[in-house]
């Protein structure tokens, strides 16, 4: 799943959910889809966590202080 972007992963996940929800799959196919879906969802989750951390890091300056703290946080929490 090296080159898959988050968006593609999400699209695939949605596709899988739709397929699973349609109920037209065989057990083997559904379990295959299910596994794939869980993988994709975990991947997305990890990606989101990572991204969240990145943002938190970006919002900190070199001294570890959040830049423009009162101001920025005010905006971010609105």
């Amino acid at each position, binding site marked *: 799943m090296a080159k898959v972007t*988050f968006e593609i992963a*999400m699209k695939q*996940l*949605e596709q*899988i*959910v739709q397929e*699973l*929800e349609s*109920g037209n*799959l065989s*057990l083997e196919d*559904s*379990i295959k889809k*299910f596994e794939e*879906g*869980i993988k994709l*969802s975990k991947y*997305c*989750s990890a990606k*989101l966590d990572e*991204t*969240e951390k990145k*943002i938190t890091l970006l*919002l900190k300056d070199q001294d570890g202080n959040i830049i*423009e703290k009162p*101001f*920025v946080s005010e*905006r*971010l929490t609105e």
Partner: protein
Amino acid sequence: MEAHIYSVTELTSEIKRFIEERYPFIWIYGEISNLTVPFSGHLYFTLKDESARINAIIFKGQYKNLKFNPENGMSVIGFGRLGVYESKGTYQIIFEYLEPKGIGSLQIAYEQLKAKLSAQGLFDASHKKELPFLPQNICIITSPTGSVLYDILNIINRRYPNVNILIIPVKVQGDSSESDIVAAIKLMNTLSFPDVAIIARGGGSLEELQAFNSESVARAIFESSVPIISGIGHETDYTIADFVSDYRASTPSVAAEIVVPLRDELKNKIDKLDRSLNTNITKILNYNNNNLNKLIGRIKSPKRIIEDMIIKNDDLNRRILISQLNIIKQLKNRFININNKLLFNNPDTYILQFKEYINHMLYNISKTINIIYKNNAHLLHQSLGKLDTLNPKAILQRGYSITRTIPDKHIVTDSNNVNIGQKLEVLVAKGSLICSVERKI
């Protein structure tokens, strides 16, 4: 190259430029005619001699300063500049100064010298040196005794006190005044120090101002490399020195005002500019700061997108679980249904039926075989019963007996059929006897 075809305006404007540049400042004399003073108060006339005429104007301001009233037929001399009035295609001389021609010898000498120096170009604007804006060293050539010097010093001191002043005292009237002034100008020019000089004298008659109307002074002024401001006599006095100097101040006081700027004014101006610098750079900084802060404020963190995505991902995850569990549940139900049917169709149930059937058949054959047996037994029993009653020996019970031969078992019914001594069997009711024939009867 083709000849250039002028428009009237083009040509006229070229003529105007040409004439006005060529004759910016000239001396001229002639006779006044056609004098008119319109409502505006400016003086219009024609200046003529035997063979030519030129239109002339003196504006109201200059007219007021004249020491005489110009009249038709009056011979006059004056200086001014040539101007072209384009919309009429005419040219005229605009007088700065005008005086009646030929009054006294001094006057004549004055006029002659003026005309001569003018002709030599000593009064030309091109020769006039620029005055320094802010001189540090000022040379004053004047009488050390008169009030003029003090007026000048006080005015300079008031306007711009931080300046060096070198006073070269000279006589300003009398025999040696001319050479004094010339020497002073020359002396001044040997010094490295002055940035500008003032030659000053108070008001006086033509005779008293004679030194300033001398050719040597005029030439000394002209040759001076230090710019010279003349402040001689009253406003109405025009000396040769005035004409030749780099700047003519109408009075000595005016010369003092001209020579230095007002220090306070400058200081205020610098302060104002300085403040303006601060204000503007602060404004720029604030402007940029505000812009930056606004932009920083508008940087939308993708956090909200992430949060949306987290919710979506969780929802999808949940739906995967639900749908998968549903699929399994459905399959399980289907399986349970089929499995129930399978178990329901367990062949066990037929086995019981078969067993019952077999038992039934077993019962039937058992029953049948019994009936067969019984029937046969009955038949036999019947035959046996009949046989029993038909037993031929039953008669013996009544005392009869049956005699038979041995071993042929022929019943003996005729004694002739036996021999004496022959053994015979006699059957009785119970048992039998073996007897021998003793005799025949």
